[in-house]
């Protein structure tokens, strides 16, 4: 049997990959995807714990997380479109009007 910790470590790795993506990529869409990866990593954690506790709460929470992810994605993409309209770029470094 696989110990719970393995699942958790996998999710931790995924989470870290997501964060790394936020830093490494210079494309807004990819950055959004990275955040999705992070959320999924959390989902894995929930499911794993749920399994261990033998309760369905975890699974249900995951549904909510998915919804939230969807909502965030919608708004986020809308914002990205707005940005792209202002300046034909998806590079986060392109947007530094506001500083200091």
């Amino acid at each position, binding site marked *: 049997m696989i110990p719970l910790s393995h699942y958790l470590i996998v999710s931790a790795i995924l989470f870290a990959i997501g964060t790394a993506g*936020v830093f490494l990529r210079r494309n807004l869409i990819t950055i959004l995807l990275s955040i999705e990866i992070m*959320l999924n990593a959390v989902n894995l954690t929930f499911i794993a*714990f749920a399994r261990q506790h033998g309760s369905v709460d975890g699974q249900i929470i995951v549904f909510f997380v998915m919804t939230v992810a969807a909502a965030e994605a919608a*708004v986020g993409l809308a*914002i990205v479109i707005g940005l792209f309209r202002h300046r034909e770029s998806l590079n986060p470094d392109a947007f530094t009007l506001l*500083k200091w």
Partner: protein
Amino acid sequence: MFNSSFDAVVPMVCVTLAALAVMGAEAFRSRGESLPVGGLGIVGLAGAAMSSVLLWNRNAASFGVIVADNFALFVTITLVLVGILTIMFSSPVVKRDGLPKGEYYTLILFSVAGMIMMASANDLLVIFIALEILSIAVYVLTGIRRDDPRATEAAFKYFLLGAFSSAFFLYGIAFTYGLAGTTRLDRIGAFLAAQSMSDNRLILVALGLLLVGFAFKISAVPFHMWTPDAYEGAPAIVTGFMSTGVKAAAFAAFARVFLSAFEPFSGEWAPVVWWLAAATMILGTVVGVAQSNLKRMLAYSSIAHGGYLLVGLVAANQVGKAAILFYLLAYAVTNLAAFGVIAMLGTKDAANDELRDYAGLWHARPALAGLMTVCLLSLGGLPPTVGFIGKWYIFSAAVGAGYYGLAIIGVLTSVISVFFYLRVVVMMYMSDRPATAVCPPVSTVGMVALVASIVVILALGILPTPVLTLAAESIATIF
């Protein structure tokens, strides 16, 4: 009427219904006609306030995840106040800047509903959802002026970092759930009380991650960096709204989670919050000194004020808890009024929110200048304004708990902050009005709201007792 098991949700339901009503009205109105949708919103908010008053002292709870204890209700009333003032200040702005009226008010109301939910949630998952509701609404409000690149950029930064931090927050929730097997705060508290502090490092990880999530929302250093940009880019009144409402809701949840569920671990989080508070106060004030844009300056000042609130959280004694509530109210009214003034002075094409735009305002608009001065003095914590009482309350909590260090940092930073508030006063009173400067006409509604909030500021500054007692009662039932 209040005795069903749905009592606790009534306030937020009122607000939500108002929001839906506004949406409907917008949807079914014929072209070109303009409805007093703002009024609808105010009605809903008033209903929420009324119901909260009726719910006072009844510790109602619904669905097991929403509690309407006095703490929640106090914050609810504060939030309702914020909402009403925001709508009143907005009405001229919306017309002026040609914002999509219906959507604007809808989002305001939804986010208020989310805030109320967050303040009265007794369940981490609900807190998370509420957080997302209000955040998404505020992201959109920030960027609601699509024609303005700065606004869009602000929205994007706020959104990206918000999503980023909420992922951490969620991760924290996940670990908490994994350890306690539940997301209900009361059960988590019971579980943690049973734990012996040291062995289980995972609890600390959960604690840390949740801390990060809240720290981002209250923009505590080093999770503050979105604040200045978002506040500067957003329309002034929206800035006022999020700097007060979001902070209040986040702090309410923060206090609830850390003072009830994680109370047993206060020994663990207190030192961290100590450092957060110190860093926040110092950085907020120090960087504020160098700002030349009023909104940005007030953004840093609001960071600093978050620091003062954290002091109350660290102190974590009865005084401190009550102080947080009182300070939230004081800060909300004052800051919102200040941003109201900024909003009034803006025009469609020019925000007029640079410091130099205020030169000699006194000569052109004596009344506005005077009211703005009162707000700034209150932010600076000078008597006889509510700001002074709030600061005094917070610091007495810190001293009472023996945190002299924090208290001293607090007072010294507040002196520095007075310096940059005074820069505005100097501009308004002690320099001459450039001939080019324009003064947009002042709207009646806005003026009414402004005067009202100034009255509140002074009244609570001189006779704070009733509200202080309320605050004390609010924390008496829980924690």
